[in-house]
């Protein structure tokens, strides 16, 4: 298996009114080809920032890369000029977001938006193709047949019923689940190697969520797309991902194959998160919430960030910062419980 993405000692600061916040702190992560990986953690843990950094969409005035690199098939994405970065964005790495209504253009029909992506893809193969979708004279709006046919194929791929009808619709005319599928169709029409999905189903109903997640899994199997799913929901991750990466306060605390993570969680934070998920009935067992709250990231720490909330904290945890290291094959944990 080839490595698609390699993140090395990557750190990002956000400038806020209360000072600099370390949003990502020395992230080390490797994503293999055709892997379905889930980034999991609570709000503010940095999972979305990592996704945005990978596709080069960090807010430019607020975010500052403090070191490290994100290497996509050997190219350091953080060193690219804006123009070079554009060549990767969309065609190599694509991203879909939580609320499709805010990421789709409300004034363009679905077909036209997917058409744009298809044209961009063709330009990559034949540089002579014009950037704009060619207009058919005399018609207010009509896609050229070859683009239309391909757009319909993409919509069929994401299981949108009646694609030749949907192609002429505006985003507001579609339901939430349909919009998210249209987003996925658009992202896939450039045939990216890596698809980053940031909470793609959080705004959807559970039956729709199940359909969209199943679709993502099918896409990975059928097209061999590598998928990075950002989610707050461990249960969702357990249902679809091959590998789960747990983040806390800007750091990766655990990284394991999905079955290993759920049968043998090592980091106290992962264990805490798992015991927070209600299973069964209240008569059976009380939930054990993680005590305390997420730390204030404006304060620099060189000790374990989970230490104040950790039920297994030791002396060393308040003095040193644990490094992420392999405790067994394909299972990395950042915790002193497993040696220094």
């Amino acid at each position, binding site marked *: 298996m080839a490595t698609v993405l390699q993140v090395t000692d990557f750190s990002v600061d956000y400038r806020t009114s209360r000072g600099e916040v370390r949003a990502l702190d020395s992230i080390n992560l490797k994503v293999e080809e055709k892997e379905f990986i889930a980034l999991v953690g609570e709000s503010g843990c940095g999972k979305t920032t990592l996704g945005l950094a990978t596709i080069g969409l960090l807010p430019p005035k607020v975010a500052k890369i403090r070191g490290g690199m994100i290497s996509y098939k050997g190219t350091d994405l953080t060193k690219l000029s804006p123009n070079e970065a554009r060549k990767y964005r969309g065609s190599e790495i694509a991203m879909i977001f939580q609320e499709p209504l805010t990421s789709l253009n409300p004034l363009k029909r679905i077909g036209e938006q997917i058409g744009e992506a298809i044209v961009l893809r063709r330009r990559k193969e034949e540089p002579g193709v014009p950037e704009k979708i060619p207009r058919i004279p005399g018609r207010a709006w009509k896609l050229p047949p070859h683009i239309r046919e391909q757009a319909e194929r993409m919509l069929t791929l994401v299981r949108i019923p009646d694609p030749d009808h949907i192609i002429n619709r505006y985003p507001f005319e579609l339901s939430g689940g349909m919009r998210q599928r249209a987003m996925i169709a658009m992202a896939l029409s450039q045939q990216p190697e890596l698809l980053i999905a940031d909470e793609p189903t959080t705004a959807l109903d559970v039956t*729709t969520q199940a359909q969209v997640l199943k679709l993502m899994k099918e896409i990975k199997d059928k097209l061999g797309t590598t998928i990075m799913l950002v989610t707050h929901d461990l*249960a969702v991750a357990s249902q679809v991902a091959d590998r789960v990466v747990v983040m806390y306060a800007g750091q990766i605390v655990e990284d394991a194959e999905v079955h290993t993570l759920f049968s043998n969680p090592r980091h106290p934070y992962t264990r805490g998160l798992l015991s927070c998920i209600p299973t069964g009935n209240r008569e059976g067992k009380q939930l054990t919430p993680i005590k305390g709250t997420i730390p204030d990231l404006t304060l620099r720490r060189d000790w374990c960030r989970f230490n104040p909330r950790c039920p297994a904290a030791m002396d060393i945890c308040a003095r040193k910062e644990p490094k992420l290291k392999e405790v067994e094959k394909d299972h990395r944990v950042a915790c002193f419980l497993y040696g220094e």
Partner: protein
Amino acid sequence: MANELLKTVDLRKYFKSTRGMNPLTKAKERVIKAVDGVSISMASGKTLAVVGESGCGKTTLARTLALLIPPTGGEIYFDGQRIDDGKADDKDVYRKLQMVFQDPDSSLDPMMKVGDIVAEPLRGLTPMKDVEVRRSALESLIAVGLSEDFVERFPDQLSGGQKQRVAIARAISTRPRLLILDEPTSALDASVQAQILNLLVELQRKFSLSYMLITHNIAVAAYLSDAMAVMYAGNVVEYGPTSAVLMKPRHPYTMALMKSAPTPDPWNRTLLQIEIAGEVPSAIDPPSGCKFNPRCPFAEAICTTEVPALSQIVEGHTAACHFLQKTA
């Protein structure tokens, strides 16, 4: 039902949609049947979970029951008396029936101090003197795990979990019998959700509260409830003891819903096995007959013409489907 606390008979709530309507002729005025004939009952001291997806009418049901909006038809009985006909003493009903909303950011007044927020129902609904009000409000704050320090704070000085605790403290301040909880943990992170769930269990025991829990989260419903009502497009399609609805669902929609609900179990990926297609239908123009028929794997001709009634499977467990023998 023994010690029945709340009962509805054929409760309906319709909204008029004027979108695209001709204002003079009222042509194209349409009716949205948000709650369309719901008859449920719940026992005192227990938790009834109402589950369903967005647009199924669960929040409208909650608001109608809390008398926040008047029903279009049907009857609501609470604590032995009818409360929807305008004859009941509103203050008495509100004192005994309180509501907790999903988003504490919008349900707490940002200009009021926490102490006043929690005291407000006491001031408005009870004849208590100010000294008693303060003491009682403080008791409620302590009961939800907050301290006296919070009395002088404003909501924006609190974390999400603390805000929801304040909302719960306000709801229990009049020592009600029934709390209607509308998605009480949906806006919270996992670790905070667990804290609030534990708190709800503790308060129920301490004050012998009854809960009506409105949620789309099956795991939360399963954890807190004794009985479960599954709603689809304005109707209850299945009702029964939580364990029966979870383990032996009989309505095809409930079956799909239970499979779609993600469980933290990578060995049992039920979510990837779902067969259901499509989404919840529009409430303006629902399908004829059984509203689930376009998405149902068992649908036959009768399902498009006749509305199935709730029929009993075993004592206390009912489902509204023409083909219950197929789903056994």
